[in-house]
């Protein structure tokens, strides 16, 4: 109850932000400058109170990631040639196959890494980006937590690509078995990279602004 009160009390509080104080902090070195200064005198980074292009870039990278994700799912991820027989497996096809073979655990990992996480990231980033503009109320520090999770988990999506890369490098037994990466592997890697960039371009200050805006 107490905590609840404190939170609520905190929420009603008006913080003195750098912006309100007419200052601009350098995102590179943290040095504070007066408003109107174009570049950081210490590290030379560009100074802006709020990154106006941030959301644009977020959306752009997000769309690029989405576009790359389509062929990543339609085209084969792995091209396996066994005794002259060529098998092409897409991401979802591979998961289904693993399930059919009874490897539930591996299937779950692959499914999570290749489907759930990327799609979750798309949704999360899009939501975060939207929530800075559209007045939605998120309790507590939800936005910040989501952002941290997205930032943290993004790189793990590359697990698929690594598997494919390692398999392709190792399993080259000529006629017996050969594994080659398909177009989907490249697309997927690009998709993951784009979404990571997208997440990186989110300006946390906007999230905090939105947080504060929730109260008003």
């Amino acid at each position: 109850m107490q905590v609840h009160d404190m939170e609520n009390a905190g929420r009603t509080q008006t913080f003195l932000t750098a912006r309100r104080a007419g200052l601009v902090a350098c995102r590179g070195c943290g040095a504070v400058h007066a408003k109107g200064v174009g570049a950081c005198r210490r590290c030379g980074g560009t100074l802006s109170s709020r990154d106006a292009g941030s959301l644009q870039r977020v959306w752009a990278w997000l769309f690029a990631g989405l576009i790359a994700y389509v062929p990543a799912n339609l085209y084969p991820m792995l091209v396996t040639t066994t005794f002259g027989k060529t098998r092409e497996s897409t991401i979802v096809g591979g998961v289904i196959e693993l399930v059919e073979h009874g490897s539930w655990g591996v299937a779950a990992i692959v499914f999570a890494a290749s489907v759930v996480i990327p799609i979750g990231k798309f949704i999360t980033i899009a939501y975060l980006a939207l929530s800075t503009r559209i007045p939605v109320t998120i309790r507590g520090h939800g936005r910040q937590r989501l952002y941290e999770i997205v930032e943290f988990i993004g790189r793990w999506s590359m697990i698929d690509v690594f598997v494919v890369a390692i398999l392709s490098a190792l399993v080259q037994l000529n006629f017996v078995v050969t594994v080659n990466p398909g177009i989907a592997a490249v697309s997927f890697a690009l998709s993951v990279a784009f979404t990571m960039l997208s997440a990186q371009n989110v300006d946390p200050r906007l999230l905090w602004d939105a947080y504060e805006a929730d109260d008003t």
Partner: protein
Amino acid sequence: MTEPGPSDLDVSVAKRSPWRNLSFVWAVPILALVVSLALAWQSFSQRGVLIEITFQNASGVTPGETTLRFRDVAIGTVEDVTFTPDLSRVLVRARVDKDVAPFLDAETEFWVVRPKVSARGITGLSTVLSGVFIEGAWDQEVGAPQWQFEGREEPPLVQPGRAGKRITLVTNDGNLISEGAPVFFHGIEVGRLERPRLTITSDSIVVDAFIEAPHDRRLNAATRFWDTSGFSVSLGGAGLKLDFDSLASVVAGGVAFDTIYEGGEAVSAGHVFNIYPDEAEARKSLFARSLADAVPIAVEFGESVSGLEPGAAVQYGGLAVGEVTAISAQVQDTEFGPEIRLMANLAIDPARLGLARGAGREEVLDFFEAAVAEGLRARLAAANLFSSALVVELVDLPDAAPASFDRTAEPLPVLPSEISDLPDFTATAEGMLERINQLPIEQLINQAISLMASVEALASSESAQAAPDAVVALLEDTRSLVNDEATRALPGDIRAAVAELRSVVTELKEGGTLKSLASALERADTIAANLETASAEFPALVDDLRAVAQKANSLEAEELMAAATRVLDSADRVIGTEAARDLPPALNAALDQVRATLSELRDGGAVENANATMASARDAADAVAKATEGLPELSARLERLVRQAEGLIAAYGHRSDFNDETISALREVRAAARSVSQLARAIERNPNSLLTGR
């Protein structure tokens, strides 16, 4: 209330053009979009044509994996395997590369390639590992495109687009003809048979064959096909003969063809040929080639047709004019109840009968009608001397029982027949066998056996085994005899004996003895005459007389005779001696020796001597005969002399010693006279005895 704090800043952002506001990062998604769309467009535009192939079964065909190949290069992939709506066939959907698709037209064939082991080898071995694939074949021309196909169960023997000619073969025996069997021309494989099939309307078997170019040019109306399946073993005068074409044709069958006469017309694709059982039949078919437009007639036989078979020749004057097509028995009702008639159906070739080309059924029947009226009859005849096979012979029998050609008979016109004068070959053979059976072969053999046994016993007896030894010994003896000094000396001895004999005879001839005897007697006579006066001389006379008598008594002929006898005896002994060795050389040597001895004899003049001796002996005999003529007179004179002497002695009157002496002398004289007369008689009876001693 107011606290000092930073003044509120006007944070309104300067309104910039929304375009200028755009981040360059937007280029990335646009680029990605463009690339993706390009990729999509590319794969869509590269996407092949979806075709549908139906198969009886699609074992091993897997969607997404099974490839579609043309000349062993993948040109597409199976995307879907389902059933046709009525579930009668398997429907395979496959995507074929765009650049190949236009070639797919009605000629196109698809089949599933699977591993297959056949008499001609193993095919599709690669599919054991890689899985089956669908092979397609089509020609090199773009036709009206088609996307629905009916797949084959087996690879086509002839892939579309190959040059050649497809023909149809007809046979009655599909036993040894299988799909894919080779077609040979002079032992070279020039084509393949397709799947044999039964015709619906008849019992014959039809099989399509494809003859590859350029060998298809060898096909014409004169071409005959025959079966080379399996192998044939024949035992003939040339020994055992094993005949087969190739191992593949032994297993899978095969046909061969050749052009058997010149000038056959060219044939088009789809021409129908017959398959003959073997090459000989095929070549023989030259004579039967016009049997196609033969006229069927029937013959009713009143005798057994055992030995007559369909295909037997119908001969007219020794020339085959047709053949027997069927033999049947028909029950006909007659006034004596149902009767079984034996019918033979004949196919008569009008051209062979000498009828004009193009003569039809009516002409043939007209011909038969006229010919039957003049005595043409059908009868059975033996095909050849050694078989019981029969042929139908059309013969002119002018004095046959009248009959007519029933051209209205159903189902076929009936030609009258005549009982054949067929020698009952079986009966003849039986008779011959019987005669052979009656031959006293067993007796003969028994005799032969006993003869053999005797010979064997004789040969195995010790004496027979010793016989050669004995013969050898005999020859040895002969040789030793011939070699013997004594034998060698024999010719000399004989010569000497002959000479002696001759001297004796000469002596006789010269009549020395006889003359001296006669003179002696005369002298004796005179002496006797003088005795009366001079009896003192008497004893000497008596001595003389005795000597003469003795000499006459001991004529050497007797000695010769004895010697000859001795020689013979010794010869006997020589031959009878036991030692005997080394027959053949001894025989030769002995013969040589004998020959030498004989030549020696001849050289020694023995024969001449003997001849001369004979001549002398004859002379002597003549002389003796002459002398003998004087002998009776001599003995008479002796008698008279003796009587005179007795009278003389009686005149003496005293029985003195002288008297006795005289009497005995006279008695001797009388004996001598008797001897002389005996000798004379003997010589008269047998003059030769003087020589032979008998």
